[in-house]
């Protein structure tokens, strides 16, 4: 995949399959320590320790339709390729946290990409799930929380095209302010 926002879109699908009602996405650009940290945390059904140990194996999946599961294996591969790693912690009944670290300045680190598109797609397709996106860089921080949006729109559905268009612009503008416009 071309950029981190696509990996994020892909990894969050696991949270959705795990019946999460709240998914938190956290990105920290820590240039001082040459690290980009990505955390995806959900309150889904969680995994037992045996599964946690095997999820980055491309030939492990809980699906019964096919024998491969590539999402976390790809993230693990790209993190390792840029001097980082993926750590997964999970508790059955509580939720799962995927933490990926990348060398910030590593030549193979994918750019962030269009996070506004990833958030808009997630909200459109999962209007009953709440998403929180926090982005921290040396220039400041940005937070987006679908619960704030819901409060304002009342009985209007969050996946209404007008609301989605607003979310896209809001996230894009928020990131432009702290990621220096071109997003690397």
């Amino acid at each position, binding site marked *: *995949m071309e950029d981190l926002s*696509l990996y994020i*879109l*892909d990894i969050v*699908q696991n949270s959705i*399959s795990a019946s999460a009602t709240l998914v938190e996405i956290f990105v920290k650009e820590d240039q001082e320590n040459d690290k980009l940290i990505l955390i995806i945390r959900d309150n889904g059904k969680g995994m037992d320790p045996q599964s946690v140990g095997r999820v980055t194996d491309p030939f492990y999946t809980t699906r019964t*339709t*096919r024998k491969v599961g*590539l*999402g976390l294996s*790809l993230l693990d591969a790209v993190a390792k390729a840029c001097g980082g790693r993926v750590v997964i912690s999970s508790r059955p009944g509580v939720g799962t946290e995927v933490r990926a670290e990348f060398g910030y300045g590593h030549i193979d680190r994918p750019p962030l990409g269009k996070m506004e*598109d*990833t958030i*808009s*797609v997630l909200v*459109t*397709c*999962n209007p009953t799930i709440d998403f929180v996106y926090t982005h921290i860089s040396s220039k400041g921080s940005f937070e987006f929380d679908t619960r*704030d*949006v819901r409060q*304002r*729109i*009342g*009985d*209007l*559905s969050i*996946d*209404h*095209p*007008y*609301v*989605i*268009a*607003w979310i896209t*612009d*809001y996230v894009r*503008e*928020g990131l432009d302010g702290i990621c220096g416009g071109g997003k690397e």
Partner: protein
Amino acid sequence: MKSLSELEEIRKRALEAVNLRKDRNGTRVVVGMGTCGIAAGARPVLLSFIEEIKKRNLQDVIVTQTGCIGVCRLEPMVEVYRPGEEKVTYIKMTPDKVKRIVAEHIVNGRPVTEFTIGAEEKQ
């Protein structure tokens, strides 16, 4: 600059324009969002559907997602369900194809046969 308070204005505008959205018996557009779909370009395809639906102010169409449909080499794939009609599966989707599918199939009820999985399998 966008602010949360704008959402109240958006809510008013939306509710004035729409009373129908609550009963959703219309067309369903389902985009394959497995790892294969995402890697092949499902996100821009899904966003173009939303864009076209917004542009045309279509009230009874919803866009949603599913996992890997099982024919990864034909991704991005989209299934269109219209009430009372058979499902139509479109393959190797692009934002340009979306425009034609919305105009011809979703609005006018004529599936774009050349983009369907049936057309591919015949070759």
